[in-house]
């Protein structure tokens, strides 16, 4: 039977199921196949904080959205074209995001009376008319999988668990994905359980064959590879890129990396990743609490290591006092905050940009700190190197604000050439720096205002530092009023003087009167929205901040050269508050704090409204 093949330029698929159904793994594998095929892609995992919420319930639904295309794309997509729903809860939880006409592939075996009742369906929506506006493909995934695995010596439970591989096989057929790497992946994942490996491969193949041979699906789809810039690519998540960036910073600085960390969602994967790479001389220390994590990192920095701590908002709150100690002792330290929805515990697995003001001001005393934020998952690599560069050059703690969306989302990453990475090596001080032969630990570099970094083990430079105010130069305890005023100003001047690249503005028309400014993970949705607006004839400029402290030197000039500045943020206007105060510019804020990234369509509407109000 020859089936029809239809060409598409892009598709958004959402895999949804119970948190025990393996949807993240299924999504990851489909992503890997798509990356190998050469599409551009962007992903959005969305899972509950509960490890296993009660089976079949709405809180237990876990999903993974993948957007892939034959051209470069910027977001995981606003609304899925295809929903794979492994049970009634997955259907119900995701249906409102599904535009009319989208495809629903539902595992009909799970639409039992009991499961339907759990989520409040009186009748199966697969059998009444309620889904008539969508294209429903009702597939008994569980029983087909169990039947396909009859010949294997595995339990019924294990057979049923392979249904996600059946679904993956079916979707792989439907979108012409290459399958060899997935088969290899399954074989290696279950290398120690050959029966499970073989049965999962069989389930995957059965899913593929089901699409190919039955009449359930009459059309399959082709999405041609995207024309991206030449180079070698891999798919990477923000957390993995961040971990690699920290390793690169260690290599490029020549300093051993010391990570002090306490597990916290959504930052733990950085700890996990770095713990795998001990042969880079990396020491990872799982501390007793957040405070000990940053304390140990600072202690290691005092000893000459690249000290790093990784956490999320609640952890930053706990670390504040130690970060203040790093500010006043002027030691390099990297504090990674993978922001999540707050306040307090908030929504640990959901994303937000609400820690900006805490990062900038959440300490006692005048306590200035550089703050940087990555724009995309792969930018987490570059921003980690940049954070290290600033910390080491200026002897200061740096806060790196990632977030849950970047941390877990992924995209193709054009691998950098190691030779092109910046040299951020450090010269420790080894000689006394005064005419009278004494060592002055707070005598500053005249250009950077950084103090000398003399590490224990260096003869003749024995010195004491601490949290008490220090006399300029000698670093001895000082309560002198004028000295304190001087030191407060010097610490601020050092941060203000950090070399930060200018803010670049993207305005192909050259005549836009509206600027859309963003920072952090909103880059993708803003850029995608701007494309839409420009396609429909709108003129709009875009600029995106990676440095939040200090700001690029030209930012005031940029802001003032537009009639209107629109600033979307996933908070209640924290950056807008700062810019209004510092530059007296009447920023137009757009704020949603739903724990989810912006949608491109939503932002396009907001941008168009601002243009139209000109």
């Amino acid at each position, binding site marked *: 039977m020859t089936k029809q093949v239809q060409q598409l330029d892009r598709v958004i698929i959402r895999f949804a199921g119970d948190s025990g159904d393996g949807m993240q793994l299924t999504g990851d594998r489909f992503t890997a196949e798509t990356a190998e095929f050469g599409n551009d892609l962007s992903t959005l995992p969305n899972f509950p904080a509960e490890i296993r919420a009660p089976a079949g319930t709405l809180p237990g639904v876990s999903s993974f959205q993948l957007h892939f295309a034959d051209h470069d794309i910027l977001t995981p997509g606003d609304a899925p074209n295809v929903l794979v729903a492994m049970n009634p809860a997955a259907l119900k939880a995701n249906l409102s995001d599904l535009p009319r006409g989208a495809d629903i592939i539902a595992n009909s075996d799970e639409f039992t009376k009991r499961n339907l009742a759990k989520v409040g369906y009186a009748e199966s929506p697969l059998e009444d008319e309620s889904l008539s506006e969508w294209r429903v493909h009702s597939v008994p995934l569980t029983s087909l999988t169990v039947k396909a695995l009859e010949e294997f010596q595995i339990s019924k439970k294990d057979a049923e668990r392979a249904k996600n591989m059946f679904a993956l096989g079916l979707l792989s057929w439907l979108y012409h994905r290459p399958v060899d*790497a997935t088969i290899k992946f399954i074989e290696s994942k279950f290398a120690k359980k050959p029966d499970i490996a073989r049965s999962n491969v069989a389930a995957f193949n059965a899913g593929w064959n089901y699409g190919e041979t039955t009449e359930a699906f009459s059309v399959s789809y082709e999405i041609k590879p995207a024309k991206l810039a030449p180079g070698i690519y891999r798919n990477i998540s923000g957390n993995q890129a961040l971990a690699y960036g920290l390793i690169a910073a260690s290599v490029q600085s020549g300093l051993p990396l010391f990570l002090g960390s306490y597990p916290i969602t959504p930052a733990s994967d950085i700890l996990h990743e770095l713990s795998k790479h001990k042969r880079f001389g990396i020491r990872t220390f799982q501390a007793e609490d957040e405070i000990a994590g940053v304390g140990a990192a600072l202690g290691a920095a005092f000893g000459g290591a690249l000290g790093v701590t990784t956490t999320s908002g609640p952890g930053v709150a706990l670390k504040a006092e130690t970060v203040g100690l790093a500010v006043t002792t002027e030691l390099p330290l990297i504090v990674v905050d993978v922001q999540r929805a707050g306040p307090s515990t908030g929504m640990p697995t959901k994303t937000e940009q609400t820690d900006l003001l805490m990062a900038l001001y959440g300490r006692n005393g005048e306590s200035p700190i550089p703050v940087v934020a990555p724009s995309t998952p792969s930018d987490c690599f570059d921003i980690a190197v940049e954070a290290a560069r600033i910390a080491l050059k200026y002897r200061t703690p740096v806060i790196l604000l990632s977030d849950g969306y970047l941390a877990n989302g992924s995209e193709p990453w054009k691998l950098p050439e190691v030779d092109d990475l910046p040299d951020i090596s450090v010269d420790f001080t080894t000689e006394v720096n005064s005419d009278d032969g004494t060592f002055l630990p707070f005598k500053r570099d005249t250009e950077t205002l950084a103090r000398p970094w003399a590490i224990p*083990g260096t003869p003749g430079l024995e010195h004491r530092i601490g949290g008490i105010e220090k006399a300029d130069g000698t670093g001895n305890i000082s309560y002198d009023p004028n000295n304190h005023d001087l030191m407060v100003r010097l610490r601020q001047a050092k941060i203000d003087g950090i070399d930060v690249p200018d803010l670049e503005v993207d305005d192909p028309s050259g005549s836009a009167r509206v600027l859309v400014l963003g920072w952090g993970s909103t880059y993708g949705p803003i850029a995608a929205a701007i494309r839409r607006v420009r396609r429909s004839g709108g003129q709009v400029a875009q600029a995106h901040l990676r440095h939040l402290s200090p700001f690029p030197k030209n930012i005031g000039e940029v802001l003032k050269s537009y009639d209107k500045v629109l600033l979307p943020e996933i908070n209640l206007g924290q950056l807008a508050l700062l810019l209004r105060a510092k530059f007296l510019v009447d920023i137009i804020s757009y704020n949603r704090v739903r724990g989810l990234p912006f949608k491109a369509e939503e932002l396009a509407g907001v941008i168009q409204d601002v243009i139209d109000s000109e």
Partner: protein
Amino acid sequence: MNGHQNGRGLALVPRAEGKQTLKDFKSDQEVRWCPGCGDYAILAAVQSFMPELGIKRENTVFVSGIGCSSRFPYYMNTYGFHSIHGRAPAIATGLAASRPDLSVWVITGDGDALSIGGNHLIHALRRNVNLNILLFNNRIYGLTKGQYSPTSEIGKITKSTPMGSLDRPFNPISLAIGAEAGFVARTLDSDRKHLQSVLREAAAHQGTSLVEIYQNCNIFNDGAFEMMKDPATRDAITVRLEHGQPIVFADQAVRLAPTGGVEVVPRASLREDEILVHDAHHPDPSLAFALSRLDEPAFAHVPIGIFRSVDRPSYDELMSDQLAAATAQKGRGSLADLLHGGDTWRIS
């Protein structure tokens, strides 16, 4: 395990070339404790003891938290870090774990170590990084001017407890043993010889050593340990623990009690073989713990010396071993290989 021997606490610290003296370890900073403070005696004892270790001064680091005692690093002409309240063990852990070539000393007090920093202390002890923690116990808050501390006796009248404190104090030795510490000792500010003998053992011990130093605060809690200093009373209450020796003092001796603990009885009532012989190296901490309870009721009998000194690999050693093993298996990491390590594809 690992073939390590006890007494290797300074094995990786470079040796000093010339002879060092007390003067080498005195900083140029004016000491600013209250006149008569027990901290002076401890500082003098430490400064005169350090040259004996024969290690490079520049490889010695004193880390402290907050409190009167935590000013200590400023007065040592070594590397020093006066940090924040309670956090010195955490900061020292990062330093010692990443720099096995340093001799790292934590200076802390009863409030710093046992109140605000209690969590870091217990985890440092169980984790066993190569640190020496000197806990100056004066049973009072000095720097904040006289509130009761977590080692103050019940009923302590202070500014914050005008009708007497209500909470039961920690016994730092019991706490440390309960926290899986490998080296636990107690000494006294005024007994320089004993203090230095304990420091010597602590420095030689690989892993975390905790030394509780009874220290007199002559302003807010004067005479807290007077019974151990007054010639009229000291011999009757001070139990000097020495490994391998029967535990005897004055006309008293310590024996196993039927309750499972230990008790003090007249020496004359026991045969020689009924007297408990102190075994600081016993892997089971039960007897060391029982000895730490001898001061119940308060100051009935107070053991000083080394309660427990057992050999086990330190965290920093094991961490270095893992790095070495990972490198031996697959070679030193290459950044280019790491970046290209996943599923990659080429676009031309």
